[in-house]
């Protein structure tokens, strides 16, 4: 089943095999570069030009003044963040919540996509597919209020547990920190599982149907075909999303934390982004927010590169 991934094999030159100097390469690829030029110009204009804003992390920026003339403070904002009394549990929560998200939230849509792919009735499959992505459209405000009716002290879950006699008095699921990570992970999965299957389903649609025929002739059962044909067929996509997921480990969520979390669970819900928001933007301290953002970005890029390298070595697949 092994497919040739790019990058791991010395690339075969497109046309000729003359010793390539960069000028010659450029000339040979002139048509390609002509197409690339506007694309590169676009990304430079819209993404790289505003990046002078990163400097904000190293100065004491006051809106209205130029970033370049603001007082240079070096790494002060980074140090402030690392030395803040909350840093420990903020980091712990961030890693725990996104760790759980990766552990459970990453495979969930793959499993769902595999199951959906196995549904025989086409109409039923389409309907379920469509329904499963509905939660993506529900705002977190609504999710939070549904969770409240479900998990509050008088919520449906407590009601059921009380009637079954499993508990003597209601459990405050939303009011005790130890339940928070589980609740937020479940909510995240519920909300985005269907949405994330879209990519996998499209990748599965790209698996050559001849391969299935061949598999059937070889006597592969349903599960066998899933394991030996479908999964390897979407491997590049899985690896890609995995690597990007690793890079996003410091993005543990924001809105859902603020809406589902509350004072009683603060020690378990505060993550890097909510913290940077409260202590940066809300206090008008853009530089602090920028410093936290920059720190996250650097870590993310390091993680993505390492994950990419590992995946290149181990799985023979890479994203760049």
């Amino acid at each position, binding site marked *: 089943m092994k497919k040739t991934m790019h990058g791991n094999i010395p690339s075969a030159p497109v046309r000729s095999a003359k010793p390539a100097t960069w000028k010659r390469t450029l000339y040979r690829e002139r048509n390609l570069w002509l197409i690339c030029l506007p694309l590169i110009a676009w990304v430079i204009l819209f993404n790289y030009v505003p990046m002078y804003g990163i400097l904000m992390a190293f100065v004491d920026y006051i809106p209205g003044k130029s970033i370049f003339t603001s007082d240079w403070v070096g790494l002060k904002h980074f140090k402030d963040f690392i030395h803040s*009394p*909350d840093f420990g549990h903020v980091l712990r929560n961030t890693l725990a919540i996104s760790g759980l998200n990766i552990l459970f939230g990453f495979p969930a849509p793959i499993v769902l996509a595999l199951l959906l792919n196995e549904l025989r009735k086409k109409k039923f499959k389409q309907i379920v597919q469509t329904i499963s992505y509905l939660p993506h459209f529900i705002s977190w405000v609504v999710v939070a209020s549904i969770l*409240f009716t479900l998990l509050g*002290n008088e919520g449906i879950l407590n009601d059921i547990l009380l009637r079954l006699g499993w508990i003597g008095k209601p459990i405050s699921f939303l009011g005790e920190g130890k339940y928070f990570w589980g609740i937020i992970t479940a909510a995240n999965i519920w909300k985005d599982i269907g949405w994330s299957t879209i990519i996998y389903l499209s990748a599965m649609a790209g698996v050559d149907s001849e391969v299935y025929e061949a598999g059937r002739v070889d006597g592969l059962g349903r599960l066998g075909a899933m394991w030996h044909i479908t999964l390897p067929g979407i491997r590049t996509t899985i690896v890609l999303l995995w690597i990007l997921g690793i890079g996003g480990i410091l993005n543990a969520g924001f809105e859902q934390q603020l809406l589902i979390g*509350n004072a*009683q669970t603060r020690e378990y819900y505060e993550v890097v982004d909510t913290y940077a928001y409260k202590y940066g933007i809300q206090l008008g301290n853009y530089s602090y927010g920028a410093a936290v953002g920059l720190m996250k970005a650097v870590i993310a890029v390091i993680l993505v590169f390492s994950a990419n390298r590992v995946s290149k070595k181990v799985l023979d697949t890479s994203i760049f």
Partner: protein
Amino acid sequence: MKKGMILTLVCVLVWTMLSGCSKSNESEVAVDQSKTAQETDGEEKINEYGWAVPSKTLEINFYAGQDNPETVKENSKLMQQFLLDKFNVKLNKIVYDVDMNEKLNLMLASGDYPEVITGLNDEQAAKWIAQGKAVELSQYIDKVAPNVKSQLGDLYKSFLNDKKELYALPSYWGVLPIPGASAHIRYDWWKEMGAPEFETPEEYYQILKKMQEAHPTNSKGEKTYALSGYSPMIKNVLPTLAGMWGLEAGYKIDADGTNTHWVNTPEGLELTKFMNQVYRDGMLDPDSFINTFDDWKAKFSAERIMGHIGSWWVTWNAGHEVWQKANKDWTDEQRFIQVQAKSANAESAKLTALNARGSYRTIITDKAKNPEDIMKWFNFSITDLGTRIIGWGVPNIEQSVWTYKDGKIEWVDAMKQGVINGTYDFTNSDKVGQGVFTLVEGIGTMKDDGKSTFWYDQNFNDEAEWKKLMNENLKDTIYDNTLGVIQIPGNDPLAVTNTQIDELLETLWAKAVTAKTEADAEAGFNEMRDKLNGAGLHDIEAYRTKEYQRRMKEWK
């Protein structure tokens, strides 16, 4: 099918473009009107309201923070037309859906802002002033705006900086001695108990307890609670609760101006024990620290809660104002009344903090071509009559709540009776533009008749049965907290400490209140106190004390 879809799409797009154009036509029409208004008024004359009508339309664009632009536009219509016709003044209120802080920063960064900005808090105003974007106003006071000085009176000097310069004017300033917060009790159920008297929080608690025993569930069989609340509790409940123990907005303030945060006072321990007692007796909604306002309102409206501690109006909004519409057999006594409770040791209950300086500031920015003209408008609108126009809306039209003829001010009786009976439709207030163009107007008792106020519905409190009852119940719980409204600037390192303390406070107080035994509650309280002091609460106290003492000296 594909063709059909494409056709529909094309239609939609064309039509969208057209509607886009028709919108711009609308604004052109508005411009035309202002032109005609400009032409007809040839010379400056004094109108019936005592305003010198300028020969050229005075247009003031002002940004007023985060609000719904559609409703603001809708509510401005009549008032804008009225001011244009009678005063030749065109006020354009600009609001955006974007968070005000964010928008202000973008305005500062991009240099794209109108000539007047209102609704700023002290800190935001300071930022604009510090960057030289605000026009110095004291230079105009004597020349064109003496009313600003005379109306503000003693407050005026509190807006001057060290150099005696004036950059920001207040809006919604002044003292209206009506209650803002209190304890609440379900009136019909309390009467059913024989309307027992109570004075202290302890007695209030006893009565609520009996009430809960009498009504353990609501009509649908859901469990009831004596008290509930919504987060953040330290903002929504605590200041009023602490007021029962004589603290001012959560601080104990000595005669010399020393500020002590409530967690460092014995009263703080007492009130925590009080709430814990309520909690342990199953009388406090266990979701109190989790509820949002909507969650709380749902419980409240479902008649599951018998009392409340906090803002006066929330039990109206969530109580009888809902029942009135939803229950056919609602009676007038099914409501909450506002009552006071005062701890035996406290000198007086301090439930309502008044801030004479108001919470909002208005600045004229450097974009103003002619600040003097704008000051002229302020000079008129800050007068008692100007405040009436801005506060009560357009007079003399069909929907008006008041009339102004030959210098005589009268209420429209039907509207007045509506407010008194609680049948007044407040969307009418929006239509006549009540409060839309507030820039520098005060909300205190007006000087000319000694009783009128900017808030239309607060003018008949003596005649409206329930408001009157509330005012009588709470009259000695109102205090002046002008000196105590202290904001720590965002760029001060203490602001970070302050945010940390606010967050810790809510978390730890929740823990102490929901402790299983009184000893645990006390231990929780002590833990909270130590942690907060460790996080720098004493620095906040010192900052407040210093500022408070400065104000005592300079403002009095």
